[in-house]
């Protein structure tokens, strides 16, 4: 029941809208099914299967909106939820920022659903986890990991006739491997729409290699270093940057995108010219939803071109007020890279530090987007193009804006979580103190 076809979803939405007496009405329907396995100390600790489906109605009289949800789908329940939304709308305060629901739109068919992933059952999950455990045990390491998959759909319809439907699949896997003495730790994390791309055995081998090689780390002085950020580390920094490409906070003067004297820094060269960032729901390695939550089509959008910020995202209200196109926030973000492999980036580095991933990143100053956090699960010193020895973890204080100005080279981009990012060679990355954590 949890995954409805386009036609099934459309029928429920149409039925729901037929009960509406409001000026405007918007109905959304979504469901997901999937499961997970968690393991630690080389044994399974918890496992679960989850299936949910729900319907939400938003009714508006004038500028007064009320919303209600339900998880039963017979006609009486559908009518009840519409009546309740309408009752709440009559009681609600007027929303001066209300924007009328959208006219019908045309969307391309999403490519985010992969049948093989939708077919995963508990046995398949156990099999994938067993492979991971096997690698850890052979390497005499302790593994703790998490494997989770889900299939989901979402559909919306409004009183102006707009209808949109998407479905997708997702599988994500992460594992931490540690040696018995607690002196070495490695980690990998991957997400795909297509389960066939996930190899838990090969991935756990990468994590195990890092755990073994990162033992007996030496302390080196904190300071400014050339770093090579693996895609996982680079992604953590980029996520924080892309979230800030929001027009309203920039216009209001409370963002790193705000300009001295008023206005925004749209069109300014904020980064090194090697930096190109776009979003695209049809990228074959990172397919996603073809419309945003409120029904706006998700189109390929360039956010940064040769270091120049080209677009900011808008709510429909803010776009109307500023009289610009209402570009929805970036999803399925891709930062373009070069052709070099990670190994080639290392080979071309005289002195530097290789960072596997970051941890506990928090904003320190929203004006400059200064972030702090720590390296984790494999940090290595590079000299004359070679990894020389593992080093103790560092705390960094760095802004992704400064970081993307200091780009020396970019490697081949790959999917990391829900972004595609290249490994990056960055000069003058600021490490401010040492950590004893492994």
């Amino acid at each position, binding site marked *: 029941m949890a995954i409805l076809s386009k036609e099934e979803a459309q029928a429920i939405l149409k039925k729901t809208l037929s009960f509406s007496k409001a000026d405007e009405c918007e109905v*959304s329907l*979504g469901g997901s099914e999937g499961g*997970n396995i968690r393991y*630690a*100390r080389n*044994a399974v*600790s*918890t496992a*679960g299967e989850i299936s*949910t489906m*729900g319907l*939400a109605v*938003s009714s508006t009289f004038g500028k007064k909106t009320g*919303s*209600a949800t*339900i*998880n039963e789908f017979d006609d009486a329940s559908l009518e009840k939820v519409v009546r309740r939304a309408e009752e*709440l709308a009559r009681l*609600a*305060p007027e*929303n001066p920022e209300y924007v009328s629901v959208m006219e019908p739109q045309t969307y391309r068919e999403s490519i985010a659903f992969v049948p093989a992933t939708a077919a995963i059952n*508990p046995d398949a999950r156990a099999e994938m986890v067993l492979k991971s455990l096997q690698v850890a045990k052979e390497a005499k390491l302790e593994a*703790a*990991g998490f494997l*989770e998959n889900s299939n989901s759909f979402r559909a919306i319809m409004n009183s102006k006739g707009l209808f949109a439907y998407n479905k997708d699949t997702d599988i994500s896997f992460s*594992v*931490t491997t*540690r040696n018995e003495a*607690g002196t070495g730790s490695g980690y990998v994390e991957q997400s795909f729409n297509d389960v066939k791309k996930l190899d838990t055995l090969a991935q756990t081998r990468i994590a195990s290699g890092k755990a073994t090689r990162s033992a007996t780390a030496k302390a080196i002085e904190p300071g400014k270093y050339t770093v090579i950020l693996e895609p996982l580390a680079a992604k953590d920094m980029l996520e924080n940057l892309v979230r800030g490409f929001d027009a309203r906070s920039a216009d*209001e*003067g*409370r963002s790193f995108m*705000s300009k*001295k*004297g*008023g206005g925004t820094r749209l069109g300014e060269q904020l980064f090194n010219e090697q930096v190109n960032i776009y979003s695209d729901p049809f990228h074959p390695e990172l397919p996603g939803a073809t419309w945003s939550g*409120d029904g706006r089509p998700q189109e390929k959008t360039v956010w940064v071109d040769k270091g120049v910020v080209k677009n900011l995202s808008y*709510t429909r209200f803010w776009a109307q007020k500023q009289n610009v196109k209402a570009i929805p926030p970036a999803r399925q973000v891709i930062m373009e890279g070069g052709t070099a492999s990670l190994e080639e980036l290392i080979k071309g580095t005289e002195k530097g530090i290789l960072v596997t991933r970051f*941890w*506990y*990143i*928090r904003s*320190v*100053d*929203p004006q*400059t*987007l*200064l972030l*702090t956090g*720590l390296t*984790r699960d494999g940090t290595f010193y590079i000299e004359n193009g070679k990894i020389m020895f593992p080093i103790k*973890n560092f705390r960094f*204080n760095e802004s992704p804006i*400064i970081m993307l100005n200091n780009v020396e080279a970019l490697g081949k981009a790959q999917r990391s979580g829900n972004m595609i990012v290249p490994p990056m060679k960055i000069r003058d990355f600021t490490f*401010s*103190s040492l*950590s*004893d*954590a*492994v």
Partner: protein
Amino acid sequence: MKRRDFIYLSGIGIGASMLQSVPGFGRDISMEEALIPIDPALKKRLADVALNAARSKGATYADVRIGRYLNQVVATREKRVQGIANTESYGVGIRVLANGSWGFAATNIVTLDEIAKTAQKAVAVAKANSKIQGTSVQLAPQKGYGEVSWKTPIVKNAFEVPVGEKIDLLMASNAAAMAGGASFVNSAIFAVNEQKYFASTDGSYIDQDIHRIFPNFTVTKIDKASGKFFTRKSLSAPMGMGYEYMEPRAASKVSGIVTRYKDRYDILEDIKAATVETEQKFKAKSVEPGKYDLVLDPSNLFLTIHESVGHPTELDRVLGYEANYAGTSFLTLDKWESKKFNFGSKLVNITGDKTEQGSLGAVGFDDEGVKCKRWDIIKDGTLVNYQATRDQAHIIGLEESQGCSYAQGWNDVQFQRMPNVSLQPGKAKLSVDDMIKDVEKGIYIIGDGSYSIDQQRYNFQFGGQTFYEISNGKITGMLNDVAYQSNTQEFWNSCTAICDESDYRLGGTFNDGKGQPSQSSAVSHGSSTSRFNGVNVINTARKI
């Protein structure tokens, strides 16, 4: 309240339709419905069905939680209500031990049939897990309490206060900020009511009614000419209280350079002060990096306690169960076994506690039916204990659990979560003014800001809301761009003074995250203003 929901709802883009897209947040519910409790006799009948079904399928132990979780949020910015949501989540979670392994299953269909089926499913999961389980689960003994109940001692149920009254208060607060020169203001009131019924094969039937509240705001002031902006967040704390927390009381105020609050909050007074302080930040000087003696207000220190004491003393982290997510801990078992691990200075006494009135962790019984208590974690500076559940107690030689089991909802499995972890006040009489008089070169920090700590809890960095320079025993002005960095053991050993109990206050969080899939829990941390000598302070200003 689940972490992702809170983060979502705390965001500035809140709107009615967006609230509905929050999955797990529950269904909308009318005020009238929310105030009708579920009959305990019915819950007992439902619980017995689950326990009997589990036993008949071979469970050696079973517990059932029938949970009804109510959440309300009223969120505003400037003159506008951004969203009002009233939601309910109701269902049953059943946990069993079979073949020495845990199994868990949950359902939102609260009928006798469905509950029996769910109990059977939980047993099947336990049996499947037992095939790959290393050693059998060992449960600390727990006596049954029979039919008992517990309720947060609230004066005024926040769910009975009309939404209109909450909107009026927030609008008046926003208006005060705007009149004082703020450029923007966001404010909100969150209210939580967990109605939890727990029953187990040990013979307990426990009915609990738990309340929490969290008012908060952020004032923002912008200077377009310079492109600079500053903010100041509220000095309120999330509390295990009813709406009485929103009713100001002189005896609950702590006066000083800014008024701070104990068990009653004054949002109007705080927002006016915040607006003035936000303006002052434009004229404050940027801190000179270096070593300073820090005087930390409880509104700042609570978060440092949470991250550097609360987390590393969680026994599941120590054992490696959180290695892939929240991390492990530097407080390994050998340090505890030695009985002489010098965690902090002799002044440092830190307790685990689930009983303190007004705290977020206070309940009568935890989520596996253990009566709540208080115990020492750090005694005279030495590590003496951890935080444990029934299946962990034997690992640290305990005869019974410390009552640290919690699940964020009926459909989440309970596991070890942090109790209130609090720094005990100094025994000798000491006021904040007297503490500051002795400081030659220091910084007085109020409110919590940026926070980050490594996965084993050694190296941390914390910010704050307002920073005051102390020179030769006097506060000489405000500072900007301050963050302090330290190592947990060095930091707690640099603690040279703790104010007496008259200054003791609670801080806390609604959203402590742990586990995969992640679960959120609410926890308080009490302390009096404390002094830490020679802590490294960095300057966080950058040019972009």
